[in-house]
């Protein structure tokens, strides 16, 4: 362990010692590498498929990291924003509402065949923006009841909301507020419009590269937002609230506003990734929105290092690859070799759980820890529940 730690530390020190221009050049080189990466692989192959999923999961994880890692609000219902983001594109980017406008449909910024279809069809970018807005609003609504709560109780309330959204997704076909069903129930909404973005020609199952680039762009945007917010007035307020609510409030940090902004930001990023996933899988399947998804994303940020932006990205990529590649491919025949007959994918969550336990024993601060969290875990400082409960008026 010491050798590994020293290795990472020496890399970190070497990086800090570089000239800013050299660092910038390395950053650009890495970026170019990721942009041209798909050209070396089959256009519709598994590599690009896995990479695309990993990037979209990174967006999800970065969103949850704002809530849990930065602001310290344990959210166990993050799947709600996956669902809401997915339904946003189901509503505004499919033929689900076919009867709209007397069957002629409503089209904004879409071309080609999609422009002729019935239903509501908005341009993919518009849908992404809509998904962010819808989820941010719901993030605030779900956040409101948790404001007077602390720690574990926040987890329970958010968990319940995640379940509620999941149930609504499954039973929403019989929920018709304006004569239009909210969801398609277990049937799912399919097909979803392929994105129609300038410069990226054919989004389809045969050439996955445009999907990859879109996911890469979303991941870069999420990274940018994460870094900018972390080093801002708001980022400091989040850490202050996480460490000591009483002191934060006494120093002029409005608790309600600060917490709700964390919920809204996290939800917005989750919704964006949710809409992307729905388009990528070409379906909004109500059975996907399960509690286990929330845990999957939470496991990513714990594995990577709570609050650490690069750590969270690493955690997302590692778990995504284990989920989509190592378990179904590399280790698929493992049970067979040891004389057992079962599908390893059925054990996915057992494997993730085992990994987390190992991680907690060996390296509780995560793969790439954030310096504050590391102190909290190893020295037992900060982030403790304050002994003096305060009477916050909401």
């Amino acid at each position, binding site marked *: 362990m010491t050798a590994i730690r020293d290795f990472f530390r020496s890399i970190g020190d070497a990086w800090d010692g570089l000239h800013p221009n050299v660092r910038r050049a390395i950053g650009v080189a890495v970026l170019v590498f990721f942009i041209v990466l798909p050209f070396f692989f089959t256009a519709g192959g598994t590599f690009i498929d896995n990479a695309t999923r990993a990037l979209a999961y990174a967006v999800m994880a970065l969103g949850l990291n704002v809530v849990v890692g930065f602001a310290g609000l344990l959210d166990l219902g993050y799947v709600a924003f996956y669902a809401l983001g997915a339904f946003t594109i189901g509503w505004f980017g499919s033929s689900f509402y076919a009867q709209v406008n007397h069957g002629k449909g409503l089209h904004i910024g879409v071309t080609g065949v999609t422009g002729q279809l019935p239903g509501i069809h908005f341009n993919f970018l518009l849908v992404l923006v809509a998904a962010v807005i819808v989820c941010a609003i719901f993030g605030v609504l779900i956040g409101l009841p948790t404001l007077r709560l602390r720690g574990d109780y926040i987890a329970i309330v958010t968990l319940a909301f995640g379940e509620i959204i999941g149930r609504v997704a499954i039973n929403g076909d019989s929920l018709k507020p304006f004569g239009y069903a909210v969801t398609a129930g277990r049937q799912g909404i399919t097909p979803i419009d392929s994105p129609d973005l300038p410069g990226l020609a054919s989004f389809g199952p045969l050439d996955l590269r445009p999907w990859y680039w879109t996911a890469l762009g979303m991941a870069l945007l999420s990274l*940018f*937002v994460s870094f*900018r*917010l972390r080093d*801002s*007035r*708001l*980022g*400091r*307020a989040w*850490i*202050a609230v996480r*460490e*000591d609510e*009483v*002191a*934060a*409030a*006494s*120093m*002029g*940090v*409005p*608790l309600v506003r600060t917490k709700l*902004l964390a919920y*809204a*930001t996290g939800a917005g990023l989750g919704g964006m990734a949710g809409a992307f996933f729905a388009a990528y899988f070409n379906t909004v399947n109500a059975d996907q929105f399960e509690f286990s998804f929330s845990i999957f994303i939470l496991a990513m940020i714990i594995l990577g290092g709570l609050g650490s932006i690069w750590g969270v990205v690493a955690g997302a990529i590692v778990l995504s690859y284990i989920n989509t590649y190592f378990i179904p491919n590399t280790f698929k025949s493992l049970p067979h070799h040891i004389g057992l007959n079962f599908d390893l994918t059925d054990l996915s969550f057992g494997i993730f759980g085992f990994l987390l336990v190992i991680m907690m024993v060996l390296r509780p601060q995560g793969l790439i820890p954030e*310096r*504050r*969290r590391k*102190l*909290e875990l190893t*020295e037992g*400082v*900060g*982030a403790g529940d*304050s002994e*003096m409960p*305060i*009477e*916050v*008026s909401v």
Partner: protein
Amino acid sequence: MSEVAPQTAPAATADGPRVAEPGSSNGTILEASGVSKIFGGLVAVDEVTFSVPRRSIVSIIGPNGAGKTTFFNMLTGLYKPNAGAIAFDGKDITRARPDRILAAGMARTFQNIRLFATMTALENVMVGLHARMQAGLFGSIIRLPSVRKEERLAHEKAAELLEFVGLRSSHFHQMSVNLSYGDQRRVEIARALASNPKMLLLDEPTAGMNPQESERLRAFMQRLRDERGLTILLIEHDMKVVMNVSEYITVLDHGEKIAEGKPEEVRGNPRVVEAYLGKQTGE
């Protein structure tokens, strides 16, 4: 309101706080009238009426458990009083939120230092600047020129304040948990000063300090008042500091105000001797 001891300034009347008191040249900055706090069956603070003249240094003393910190917590909005009214700088702050009270100009420190442990000294002070900054969510993401400028100014102001309270510049970027006890006290005062308050509430600031450090802090408090025009209200156990620095002293015992006045008056008050000083000599 029933047992009001001799007042340094006339008490607030029931129909509302008076801002400028005829009795004092500077007026009153803080007025608490009949403030009570009850926890379950325990009356922690019992109808305390109290006022602080502008630009003065006032101490609250009393034995342990007298309700001093509870009273502080009501003034700064951490507790909501069960009865009574509090007015600060002409505004009613009785049930206001802590962050609003800070924005109105009342900042505090805590008895058991409550710095953000994993933030550096400088970051701690920058949190104290929160209320005086504007940057919002989108401005911070885009990092508008105004946001950039504000961050830079906040950074400068924080460094300036840390220098003012006497923290060595080599410690500015130390995590506050790694600072010495005395330095943590300094950072906490700098953090409270960051919001540019009109009034500073210090909860046992000399706790754990040796006589030299206490004396330095006493001089520092006087400097804050004289140079920055601050009003200072402090809870203090060190009688040497209290008697030297305070213009007025209020004594609490079992949640009730038992005496009030100039240091020499309070010192001679038999009730105080009985409740507080008497107890101390018995130890």
